[in-house]
């Protein structure tokens, strides 16, 4: 989906978001508020530069606009796969972005992620997935890795993975599966602007995803394991 | 994966009331979880193995193990990823020795 399409749908009251080399930044009116908008488009790979640009934007927002809500627009093919990025320490750039998102949340900025097209793995693990909550459009793709590469690395035949990917929430790439896992809060249809407003109002700092995964049946063990360890129990509560 | 179970009687060596784990579930390796339990004096062993069709070999290794240690009221669980019989016997012995305080 073109970034201009999603921004028009989200911000009927206007915005000044611009795109430069697949990096999105700007602000928009949502209800009575100004919202900071940052993200990527064009299925951008996330390399050191674009990670740093997103981080800088968030830090500027924290410094100059206390409390301003932040929307992270996600469309990425994943982390950039280059020797140079590894040499420079892309994991540090990603971590830095994640820490900036976390700081914003701590300082009272509601932070929402929206996957409006693609989200692969390392491309959104320290942006959308570190927001107060991450949302997705129905036609978006969220996945860890393409099946052929997964087959190569796990040594599980591609046919088997393809079979599982049809209906198994652990492998299937659609946003419904992340919804079931608790990774995605909600899938937005209909009035996107209204849903954005609701999401910003509902943003809360606690990580509820494991509880959601349990309630929705996609991850039945994460929350019970966390609970057992916190409570000092030697077994999961049945 | 293949699941195999064994149960031996006639053992007399009791184990302390604890659980121990030795080994790692990696290629050519296995983990052994050993604990005491009320089994009417028996030694019960459950094996989950990624190497299919070696039932007879496992049986021989387990018989030798029981002859060696004669455990009573012992529960042993194994996750195996293709270890050789020699490595399996080694890990089983390590598990018992760790239980009995010999190896720490």
């Amino acid at each position, binding site marked *: 989906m073109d970034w201009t399409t999603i921004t028009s749908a989200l911000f009927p009251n206007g915005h000044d978001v611009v795109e430069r080399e697949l990096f999105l930044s700007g602000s928009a009116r949502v209800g009575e508020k100004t919202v900071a908008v940052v993200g990527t488009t064009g299925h951008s790979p996330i390399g050191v530069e674009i990670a740093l640009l997103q981080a800088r934007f968030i830090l500027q927002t924290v410094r100059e606009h206390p409390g301003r809500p932040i929307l992270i627009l996600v469309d990425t093919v994943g982390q950039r796969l280059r020797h140079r990025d590894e040499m420079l320490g892309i994991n540090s750039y990603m971590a830095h972005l994640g820490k900036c998102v*976390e700081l914003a949340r701590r300082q009272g900025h509601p932070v929402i992620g929206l996957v409006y097209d693609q989200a692969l793995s390392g491309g959104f693990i320290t942006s959308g997935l570190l927001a107060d909550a991450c949302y997705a459009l129905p036609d978006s793709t969220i996945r860890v890795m393409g099946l052929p590469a997964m087959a190569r690395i796990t040594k599980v035949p591609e046919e088997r993975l393809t079979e599982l990917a049809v209906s198994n929430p652990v492998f299937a790439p659609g946003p419904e599966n992340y919804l079931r896992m608790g990774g995605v809060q909600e899938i937005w249809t209909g009035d996107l602007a209204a849903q954005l407003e609701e999401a910003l109002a509902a943003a809360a700092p606690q990580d509820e995803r494991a509880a959601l995964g349990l309630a929705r049946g996609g991850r039945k*063990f994460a929350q019970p394991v966390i609970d057992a360890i916190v409570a000092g129990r*030697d077994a999961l509560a049945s | 994966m293949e699941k195999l179970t064994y149960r031996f009687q006639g053992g007399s060596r009791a184990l302390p009331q604890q659980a121990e784990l030795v080994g790692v579930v990696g290629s050519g390796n296995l983990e052994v979880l050993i604990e005491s339990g009320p089994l009417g004096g028996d030694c019960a062993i459950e094996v989950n193995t990624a190497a299919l069709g070696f039932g007879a070999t496992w049986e021989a290794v387990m018989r030798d193990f029981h002859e060696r240690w004669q455990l009573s009221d012992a529960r042993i669980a194994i996750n195996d990823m293709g270890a050789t019989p020699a490595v399996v016997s080694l890990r089983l012995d390590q598990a018992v020795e760790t239980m009995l305080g010999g190896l720490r």
Partner: protein
Amino acid sequence: MSSYLELTARERLALLFDAGSFEEFLPPKARVISPHLAQLDAPVAFDDGVAVGRARLDGQAVFAAAQEGGFMGGAVGEVHGAKLVGLLKRAVAEKAAAVVLLLESGGVRLHEANAGLVAVSEVMRAVLDARNAGVPVIALIGGANGCFGGMGIVARCTNAVIMSEEARLAMSGPEVIETAAGVEEFDSRDRALVWRTTGGKHRYLLGDCQELVADSVPAFRAAVLATLARLRTQETALTLAALEAEQTMLAQRLERFGGLEEPMQIWTALGIAEPRSLPLLEAGPFVEQVAAYRIGAN
């Protein structure tokens, strides 16, 4: 001198902390195994590849975890990730002096795909929550599998990273890059290049790890003690000032070295007269030699 690299996760816990002090939470006898591996006909581990609990270091109580690189490359699945999250939450509840993470991982466990990705994200949040609650988190990296993927990011979310010269810290492994972009881009069989690019010494020079030690348990133990003492004098939580400083540091790194192709060119740019000699130096002499040149305030 016991090699840290060659030990299992449990052996590292037993030898690094005070003898007999490690008390495990949700131990293997609880048999909390992965719910997803059976459908791929893959074997499980009773601890799902990570041991978490409490231990003492010179009498000081800390919380600790060790990932087992021998099981699924230490990769994080639903249960594994939840154990780390539970540990970090409990550390906050009990006001632990620190959480010490012995990391060895390929990142998200592909066999658990979506569940693994969300799990790693939850670990990241939990590390940052612990820091924000005043609990310092330290990462140790020294296993054969290195620390990659989402866990490579988690490592740089902690207060301090300690690496051995054998260790590697990165995001994507060289094989993945070679498959995606060709052998010209990154020859994964060129071990020397792999270590120059992602190894402990290079990360130490860039300032991405704060201590570089020999591959030995006593060396890691001493480094953890020194790090704990140092962290007591610093802010544990994230602050705007610290992140702005990190922004500047990372921007300068990109500006100075972004046009270079070979890690040794970076070392030269840092002012090191004989970069070729660095890989050959033992940890101690290496640290001494580069002290004046490496980036990075602690």
